[in-house]
Structure formats: structure tokens, C-alpha cells
């Protein structure tokens, strides 16, 4: 118990500090950014680096597990302490998160006060004025008081005006991206995220630099999704047929979960990705390497990456397991039976057609659920995917290297 309290206090001072001062500082630094003042940016970079130095790494790493082992926190009551952050909120990791945290705790203490008031009054009245004799009546007391009514109307009015104003100020910050923000396009599709960088490169995870704000321009290919990064206190819906946008500026390098918050069907709860915040100066290097994976890797290896990034992995397994679509294991070169009763051998042309226009031939027993990839993949990528599927075939894998263990979980391909 004591340990958890200690953690609470630590993260409170770490995450929020003296809040009004922190808010002012952040507001100033935003103004600097907008004005293009390099000194402000440099200050912030230095601050981020310093923060990075003392930051606790994301609890996924082995350090966190060591911590668990050392402290022996195996009981259920205590995992909050390992998970970082305060009792109510995870560790904040963006420049605007403290607006939310500050207001969250302000409302929390206001609510706690009024709730305690209600319960204490209720209990005291219950004890003081309990009916001692079944025939006893109430003492004389007034049944209305305009002064009291106005008092308990006026006080809540003042409080909610304050809460509204604080929420509004934070919201305007969250919704107003700095003009120098780095732009990344986000596309949602059942049940996969696509992050398109300015180079045209598409990744399944959101890699971002730490030294500049990032603006996300988002849309959906099917139903409404919602991008939710708890550590950044950020959420915005992805609506098909229009663009929505949001922005953030990460303050600590590391990996943070990114979730879909708007219910979107069967696999809604596995529509997950990572936000990878790179150390200062490392993002550009990562982007360059990642953008050139088609040139640097063999077709089979490139195909494996595409399999993860283009959403194939959500519905097609690599080991024969039946998912939403047929498995890729031993798919190539085998006869396929279609829903209309016809059959064909799965050759390169069949695979190509199935990727680009999936509804042309539906494999018997599977729902026609796959979105068409016509126009989304260039020739090299189609060839790489086909080479990868071929490599999974026991009979036809002679020209391909044997596949390593596939990892279905969204994991970054490059370390930050």
C-alpha cells in the first residue's frame, strides 16, 4: 500500500508538477513554436531530452518485469503500481496531456467534496433524526427557503462555469495544430491501421519524431473508427467519406498503445497499433530505411512485411488456421473450390486477381469480406506478396527461404 502511494506521488510530481506553472510554460512554448522562435524549440528539445533521460521505459520491457519480480507485486490489488501513472490515469506523454490531467483531478476533488458532503449529511441526518418510536412525528422545520435555494443554485453554477472554461481551454489546444506540424495520414480499415508518411511509405504503426509536433489527417475505408492514444489523452474519430484531424507533440521517447475506441465489428478489440516515439534525430533515419524496404529486401522478405502492413494478417493465417479468410499456408499451387461450384488451381494469376479484385472468385465457405487492393499496390508489391505466399507452400517453396516464426502482434519493425 505504501509503495503504491509512493508511486502515485512520484508520477503526480513527474507528470503534472505545479500545474498552473506548467500550463503557463507549455502555453508559452506553443506560442514560441507558432512564432517560429528557434530558442523556444531548442529549449523544448533540451527539456525532452532531459525528460527522456530520466523517463521510465514503457513497462513492456524486461526492466518492468524485473521490477515486478523484485518488488513481488503479484497480488491483484497492486498492479496499478507497476503500470505507471497515477491511480486514475496512465503516465502522460504529450504536451497537451496535462490540460486533461489537471482538469481531471480538479473535477475529481470537486466531485469528491460534494459526494462526501451528500453522504455525510445523509448519514448524520439518518442517525440524528432516526424514528425512535413508530408513532413519533417530525419536528417543526421550514419547508422552503428561497435563500437556501438560491445559494445551492449559485454555487454549482460558479463551479460548472469554471469546469467548462478549463475544459474549453484544453480542448482548443488539442484541436489547434501548430502550423509547423509534421503531417501523417491515417487510414482505418476493419481491423487495421495504416499510417502513410510524406515519403509515401505506409506502416502499420505510428512512428513519430519527438522534436516536432505531429498532425494526423485521418479517414476510414469502411465504418467509423476512433484513434485513441491514452498516454497522449488523445481521441478522434475516423469517418468514412471525410477527413478529421488531430495533433500531438510527444514528450518522452518510447512505445505507447494506440487503440480503436469506436466499435467497428468482430475484431474491434484487436485493432491495435503502437505509437513509437523516436529519440531526437532518429526518426528521419528510421523513415529512410523503412521507406526503402522494397529495394533493400528480397521479394519474400518484403512480402512478409507487406503481409503485416497491408492488413492481410488480420484475416489470413500462415499456419493453416482458419480465420476470416483462407490461410496462406500451402495456398499456392493447390486446387481451390469456389462458392459457385467451379474450381481452379491457385497460380500466380489467381493470387493476383484475388488480391486486386477479391470478389471475382469467392472461395467456398468464406464470406466475401475482403476489400479490393486495386490501385493500392504497385507491381513490385504485388510480386513480393505472391513470392511470400509461394514461400509458404511446402511443395513450391524451393526458391524461397524457409519462413521464420510469424508474429501476428503489432510490433515495430525498427527499434526507436
Amino acid at each position, binding site marked *: 500500500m505504501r509503495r503504491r502511494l509512493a508511486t502515485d506521488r512520484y508520477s503526480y510530481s513527474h507528470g503534472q508538477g505545479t500545474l498552473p506553472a506548467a500550463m503557463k510554460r507549455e502555453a508559452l512554448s506553443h506560442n514560441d513554436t507558432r512564432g517560429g522562435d528557434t530558442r523556444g524549440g531548442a529549449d523544448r528539445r533540451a527539456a525532452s531530452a532531459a525528460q527522456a533521460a530520466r523517463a521510465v521505459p514503457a513497462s*513492456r520491457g*524486461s526492466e518492468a518485469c524485473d521490477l515486478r519480480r523484485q518488488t513481488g507485486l503479484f497480488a491483484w490489488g497492486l498492479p496499478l503500481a*507497476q*503500470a505507471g501513472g497515477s*491511480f486514475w*490515469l*496512465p503516465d502522460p506523454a504529450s504536451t497537451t496531456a496535462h490540460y*486533461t490531467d489537471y*482538469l481531471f483531478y480538479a473535477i475529481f476533488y470537486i*466531485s469528491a467534496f*460534494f459526494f462526501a458532503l451528500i453522504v455525510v449529511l*445523509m448519514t448524520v*441526518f*439518518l442517525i440524528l*433524526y432516526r*424514528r425512535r418510536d*413508530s408513532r*413519533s412525528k*417530525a419536528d417543526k*422545520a421550514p*419547508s*422552503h*427557503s428561497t435563500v437556501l*435555494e438560491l445559494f*445551492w*443554485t449559485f454555487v*454549482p453554477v460558479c463551479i*460548472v462555469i469554471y469546469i*467548462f472554461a478549463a475544459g*474549453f481551454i484544453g*480542448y*482548443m*489546444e488539442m*484541436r489547434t495544430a501548430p502550423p509547423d506540424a509534421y503531417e501523417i495520414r491515417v487510414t482505418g480499415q476493419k481491423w487495421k491501421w495504416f499510417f502513410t508518411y510524406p515519403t509515401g511509405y505506409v506502416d502499420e504503426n505510428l512512428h513519430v519524431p519527438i522534436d516536432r509536433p505531429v498532425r494526423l489527417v485521418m479517414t476510414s475505408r469502411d*465504418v*467509423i473508427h*476512433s484513434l*485513441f492514444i*491514452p498516454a497522449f489523452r488523445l*481521441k*478522434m474519430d475516423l*469517418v*468514412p467519406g471525410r477527413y*478529421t484531424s488531430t495533433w500531438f507533440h510527444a514528450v518522452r521517447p518510447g512505445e505507447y*498503445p494506440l487503440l480503436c*475506441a469506436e*466499435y*467497428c*465489428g*468482430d*475484431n*474491434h*478489440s*484487436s485493432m491495435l497499433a503502437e505509437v513509437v516515439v523516436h529519440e531526437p534525430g532518429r526518426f528521419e533515419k528510421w523513415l529512410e530505411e523503412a521507406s526503402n524496404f522494397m529495394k533493400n529486401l528480397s521479394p519474400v522478405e518484403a512480402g512478409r512485411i507487406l503481409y503485416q502492413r497491408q492488413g492481410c494478417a488480420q484475416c489470413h493465417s*500462415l*499456419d493453416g*488456421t482458419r480465420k476470416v479468410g483462407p490461410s496462406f499456408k500451402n495456398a499456392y499451387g493447390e486446387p481451390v473450390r469456389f462458392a459457385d461450384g467451379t474450381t481452379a488451381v491457385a497460380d500466380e494469376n489467381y493470387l493476383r486477381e484475388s488480391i486486386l479484385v477479391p470478389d471475382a472468385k469467392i472461395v467456398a465457405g468464406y464470406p466475401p469480406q475482403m476489400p479490393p487492393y486495386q490501385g493500392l499496390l504497385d507491381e513490385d508489391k504485388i510480386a513480393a506478396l505472391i513470392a511470400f505466399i509461394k514461400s509458404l507452400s511446402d511443395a513450391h517453396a524451393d526458391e524461397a527461404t524457409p519462413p521464420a*516464426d*510469424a*508474429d501476428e502482434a503489432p510490433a515495430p519493425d525498427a527499434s526507436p
Partner: protein
Amino acid sequence: MDHSSSAPVDYLHADRGIRSWIFTLDHKRIGVMYLVGIAASLVLGGLFALAIRTHLAIPALTHGTTPAASVPAVGEPAAVAAPEAAAVQADAAAGLAAEGQAPTAASTLQETPPRYLLTPRQYNRVFTLHGAIMIFLVIIPGIPAALGNFVLPLMLGAKDVAFPRLNLASFHLWVIGAVFFLAVLFTGGLDTGWTFYTPYSTTTDTRVVTAALGAFILGFSSIFTGINFIATVHMLRARGMSWFKMPLFVWSLYATAVIQVLATPVLGITLLLVAAERIFGLGIFDPKLGGDPVLFQHFFWFYSHPAVYIMILPGMGVVSESISTFSRKHIFGYRFIAFSSVAIALLGFLVWGHHMFTSGQSRLAGMIFSALTFSVSIPSAIKVFNWLATMYKGSISLQTPMCYALAFLFLFGIGGLTGLFLGALSTDVHLHDTYFVVAHFHYVMFGGTLVAFLGGLHYWWPKMTGKMFDETLGRLGALAIFLGLNLTFFPQFVLGSRGMPRRYFDYSLLLDRHPEFAGLNVLSTAGAFLTGLGFVIVVICLAHSLWRGRPAPANPWGAATLEWQTSSPPPKENFLRPPVLSESYDPYYLDDLEYDDKTGAYAGVPLGLA
């Protein structure tokens, strides 16, 4: 049926046979039939809730004990995170899973989820139907159509509602709507969530049209009840009952009826548009057909936010009655409570956009809706303080309906105050669509409306059935529900604010980073079963009273409102002589009523009643 006796025949025995119930025009019988239907729906919705909670405990109990831990290649010491207690229980399940998949590589472990209670498709159908049944079949008609139907004419001193046939039609429509929902259940289910968000609802292959028609029909049932109540309150008040001599429950029903009549048609139109889009391919909401999915959210919440007040206002009315009666004291601030109901009803129409702060609506719209949302919180606060002031210097008796009323104060306190987090723009962005919202609206809908419904049911039970229930069992049921409800939903606040989204079939992928989700989910599930036990106690208590309860006196609690001035149960025509009120009548002046130990009832006529 003893016509020779001088006592009037009560409404339960006035006519015989099944037809005398199904085609009755008596508001009391219609209320009782509503009660039976709503109770059955509550059981069904409750079983779905237990299925959801049972399902959601399993990832916590099995996490980290899958064979992944034994495969060194994965390199994730995830098993360490698992609580020891869970490890023992889950080993068996994990062993089974390992046997079947031993030959396949580590990748399988990620692809094949552990043996959960439900598949994703089942889970999505179960939470959808839990929500749809609880909202459309239980909570919306709960207090107005079951309790209100029974009590409203009695409280006004009237013989029946203004339009008895419309009242019966409203019940028949409710039954037809319920049949549509059952049809959905048995023909493949519905997986859109009760909110029917487009374009998911226009593209899913589940039974959206059937469910939309069901909700459409239920909407008309609700509108009929609303029209009836408005007309009854305007036209059929007893002679001498001015507006400010009406009981506060009537005021709350009146405010509710206004919302029912004005808001429900919008829901009906919206659901018809969804059905038309699915059937005829009209492009209204689906962007592929040129529609706008966010338009649906505006339409939907234009009804469904005011609907929240359809659900809570009558509950507040019940609490106003109980707190005054069981404190033996005049209600404090009658006019403020009455007008706050009307204020909530009117302001409730202007706040729907607070469900859409992250939908991409403009910043200006967000600001306006947030500001208006806070304006609704003021009338609610006024009511709470007035209830507390009523208890001050009272003579408080903790009988079962009062236990529920105090539980309401506690639970609605939490539900209302956590609404402040969601009305504020910046905090809502983080909390929207997480378990924080789930906890918030269950505290309001379950902790508020359903608890008030149970309180009202116990309060008017002697009047409806003519039997007293066992106080010990009644209080025990209230206590179990109160504790279970807190245990179920309080952990969900923490789950949500720490980042667990709602409507997640499986959260095991989040457990490595959020080991705390495991324990919180298990606590919540334990609470759900305790709540279930509470409901079983309530059923036993009420069933026992029908079987063995002592006959109820006319006025067992000592209230001065008119329904207690006739026999329990009342005769078919409610009052042998229509009550006439003089200028001095006051529904909350209780001092003229004296408790008689021998009969266990209150004797005496309230001041100003001829």
C-alpha cells in the same frame, strides 16, 4: 367476488379470465401487465449482462498462462505479469489449448484466443441486445408505463387515464415491439450496439431492419403513454387540485411525457431512414451512397439524449415521494423540485452534441454543447440538496423504499458527478468510448433509474397487490443490489480512465502494458454476480408477499397523496367517491396522520380532503 359484502370489489377481482386482462381498459391492470413484461425483459437483459461479465473475467484469469510462456522464441516474459492466483485456475484451460495446437508454431498462440465464454460475434450480439433490451424494453417504459400507469390517475384522484383505449394500445404495441426484439434474438441477432451507428448498421449482415422496426414500434408505445399522461394531468385532476397541489411524482411524469411526445418521433424517423437505406439503397447515412454517417449521430442523439431524462426524471419523482414519506416531513422546496423537472426536460433537448465531441464536429459546436450540458447539471443538484433538506429534522424510518431512495442519492450522486468529467471538453476526449462512460451511465441508469424503479415498486407494492412484503428480505435485497452495483461499476471508472475502451471482446493484448485491467475486471464480474443475487432476493421477497404477506392497509407508510386514501388494492373505479380537495390540502402535510400500532397502518384523513 363476494357481492353480498359491503366492501367494494378490488380491481384484481372485479373481472375474471385472461381476456379481462388482455383487453382491459383499467389503467391499473395495464400497469400490472406492463410490470410483468418489464420484469421478464429485465431478467433477459440481466442474463445477457452476466454473460458479458463472465466472458470478460476470463482473459484476466487466463492471461500469461497460455503456452506462449513456454516458447522461448517469443521472448516476452508475459507470464510473469499474471497473478499467481489466476495461474492455478487457468493452467487446466491452457493445458487443453496446448494439446490441440502443440505441432504449430508460436504464431498460433496469438491467433487462437484462449477459450472464452463467447466468440467475438456472439459477444457483440450479446452486448448489443443487453443494451437494446435494457433501454427500450426496461428502463424507458419502467417507471412511467408500469408504476406511472398504475399510480398517476390515483394520485390525481381520477377514475382512469384520459384515453384508456390508447393506453391499452400502448401496451399492445410494447408487446409487439418486444416480439420484434425476440425475433432479432432468434434469427441471427444484431451486432451494431444499441446505438445503431452508421455506416456500420447499414453494412452489417445482422438483423438491423427487424430491430429498427421493433424500436420504432416501441417508440409509438412510448408516445401514446406520453400523450395520455399529458392529457390526464391537464384534464382529470380532482376537484380542487391545482397544479401546485400535485404530487412531485406527477410533475416528473408530466415532464417525462413532454419529452416522450416531442423527442421520440425523431428516433422513429431516424430508424426508418436506416431501414430505408438498407432496403432501398437510399444514400442518407452511408458515404458510399453519398450520405453522411455523422448526420445519423445528430439524429440519434437528438432523441437519445432527451431519452436519458425520460429514464431518470420519473426516478427522481419516486425518490421525492419516498424521502418525504419516510422522513414524515413535508418535502423541502416543492416548487424548486417541480420546476427543476421541467427545466431538465427542456434543457435536455439542447445537449445532444456532447456525445460527439470526438466525432469531428466543429470546435464551436463542441463549445456550445459543453456549455449547455453543464446547465442541465444545475437542476439535478437542486433536487439533491432539497432531498437532503427534507431529511433534516425529520423522523426517518429506514423501510425498504427509503433504503432504495437513499441508495439512489448515493448512486445518482456518483453517476451525476462523473458526468462533469464527460461534459468538460478536454477530459471527455480522453474518457469518451472508454469504460469510464460505461460506469457513468450504469450509475445513472441502473443506480438511478432501476434503483428508483425498485424503490417505487416496493413503495406501491402494497397498493398494487394488497399485500405487505417482508421488511427484512426487502432491505437485504436492497443492500445486496447496492453493494453489488458499486462493486461492478466502480472499478470500471478506473479501467476507463486508464485507457480501456468499451465494447472490447478481449483485452488480453492490453494486459502486458496494463496488468491492472485484470484485477479490475475480475472485481467487476464478482460485483455482477452479487447484483444478480440481490435481484433473486427481491424476487423471493415479493413472491413471498403474494403468497404469505399480510393484507395491506390503505395507508401503510403514512403518505398524504391521494392513492393512499383508497383501499389496497383499490376498487376498479379507484375511489368510491371522487375526492374533493379544499384550499388547505397539501400532498406533503403529514401531521394529521397518526400511526396505529395495532393495525400497523396510518389512520386519519389528510388536511383539506373532504
